[in-house]
């Protein structure tokens, strides 16, 4: 009787609980709390938090290779590079490139904000991370969740969970992280700079842009093709005006479905053994540094451009060069209106903000090209 009871107990997960598993439950529940109570990137942090709980339920087998349900989501969705490009299809369908087309010189602010990616990459390598891990940590500075996931799954899958959570956490904290840096690096007079009025962009121009840029970018960085091609296809859906159903599907149904299948398996990669390591703390610290440096370098580049230009750029726009769309642009607008209530920077900030998305994709593509060739 006693032996039957013992073997019955052994079939439950309770006897396999460890302190590490309990810590992971706390982390999972904390993410769910932040998503529900604080509204921090709830679309991603809620399924990631739940995925963490599931991955840390002993004997569930959800992440057992070849068999587990979440392993299949991860393998065929993320490892096979299906989900991140589909998310980019949705982002393309959402994105209006009009502000970028109206002010093309603001594109370079999107490049300036990628400096944090490479500086942090260098720092991470100096701290002992291998070159693949360092690249994955650096890309957090681009503040682009799907690109971080795309790169991590390709070159450092062991860091996928930590890097994804770091990227989405910092994206949610843009309104907290960026304003102090913006105020520190600009004067009151600079924050009051008013941008010259933008020209109106025609529909034909908006249709031609995704076609022309697809050719040029993919020819330059072939490794960025999966993300850029889907981004531009989604944008063509939007701008063509003839495939409203496809545009809505990419923006809504498809985006929502892949968000579910992205978040849960990412959380499920975070089991106690893989996640509770000292290097995860470094990943979060370095990721934060990357993001802060990207903000600062974007502002510095705007100031540098002002030295050589008669048409002054409000340096706050440089902070929108990170790709947290549209949060970073909104923060720029908010800080700008604090200095001058009539200084509307939102539409101008959308230009570098969108350029930042493309810049991060190019940065990831370059990492892939240089490190895997």
């Amino acid at each position, binding site marked *: 009787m006693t032996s039957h009871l013992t073997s019955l107990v052994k079939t439950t997960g309770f006897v396999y609980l460890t302190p590490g598993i309990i810590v992971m439950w706390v982390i999972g529940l904390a993410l769910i709390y932040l998503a529900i109570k604080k509204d921090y990137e709830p679309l991603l942090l809620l399924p990631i938090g739940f995925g963490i709980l599931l991955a840390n339920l002993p004997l569930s087998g959800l992440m057992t290779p070849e068999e587990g349900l979440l392993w299949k989501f991860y393998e065929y969705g993320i490892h096979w590079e299906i989900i991140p490009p589909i998310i980019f299809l949705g982002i393309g369908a959402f994105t209006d490139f009009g502000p970028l087309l109206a002010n093309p010189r603001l594109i370079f602010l999107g490049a300036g904000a*990628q400096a944090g990616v*490479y500086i942090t990459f260098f720092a991470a390598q100096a701290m002992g991370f291998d070159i693949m891990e360092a690249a994955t940590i650096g890309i957090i500075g681009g503040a682009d969740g799907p690109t971080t996931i795309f790169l991590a799954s390709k070159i450092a899958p062991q860091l996928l969970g930590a890097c994804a959570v770091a990227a989405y956490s910092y994206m949610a904290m843009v309104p907290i992280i960026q304003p102090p840096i913006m105020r520190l690096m600009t004067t009151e007079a600079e924050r009051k700079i008013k941008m010259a009025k933008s020209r109106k962009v025609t529909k034909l121009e908006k249709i031609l842009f995704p076609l022309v840029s697809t050719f040029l970018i993919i020819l330059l960085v072939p490794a960025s093709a999966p993300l850029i091609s889907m981004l531009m296809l989604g944008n063509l859906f939007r701008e063509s005006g003839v495939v409203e159903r496809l545009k809505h599907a990419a923006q809504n149904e498809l985006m929502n479905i892949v968000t579910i299948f992205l978040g849960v398996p990412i959380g499920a990669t975070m089991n106690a053994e893989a996640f509770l390591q000292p290097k995860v703390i470094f990943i979060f610290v370095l990721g934060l540094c990357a993001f802060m440096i990207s903000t600062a370098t974007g502002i510095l580049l705007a100031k540098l451009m002002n030295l050589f230009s008669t048409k002054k750029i409000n340096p706050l726009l440089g902070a929108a060069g990170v790709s947290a769309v549209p949060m970073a642009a909104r923060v720029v607008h908010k800080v700008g209106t604090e200095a001058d209530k009539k200084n509307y920077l939102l539409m101008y900030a959308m230009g570098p903000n969108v350029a930042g998305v493309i810049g991060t994709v190019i940065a990831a593509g*370059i990492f892939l090209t240089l490190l895997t060739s």
Partner: protein
Amino acid sequence: MSASVVFIGGISSVFFGMGLLYLSIKITAMITARLTGKRKENLS
């Protein structure tokens, strides 16, 4: 591949990529101007 090569090559390639994007916007504006028969400055 050493980190310094990736660092320098990476930053310069991102700027080159953005330059290419800038070029694609200019080409787009030029094609649009040709197709509509308007000057680039007056596309609207």
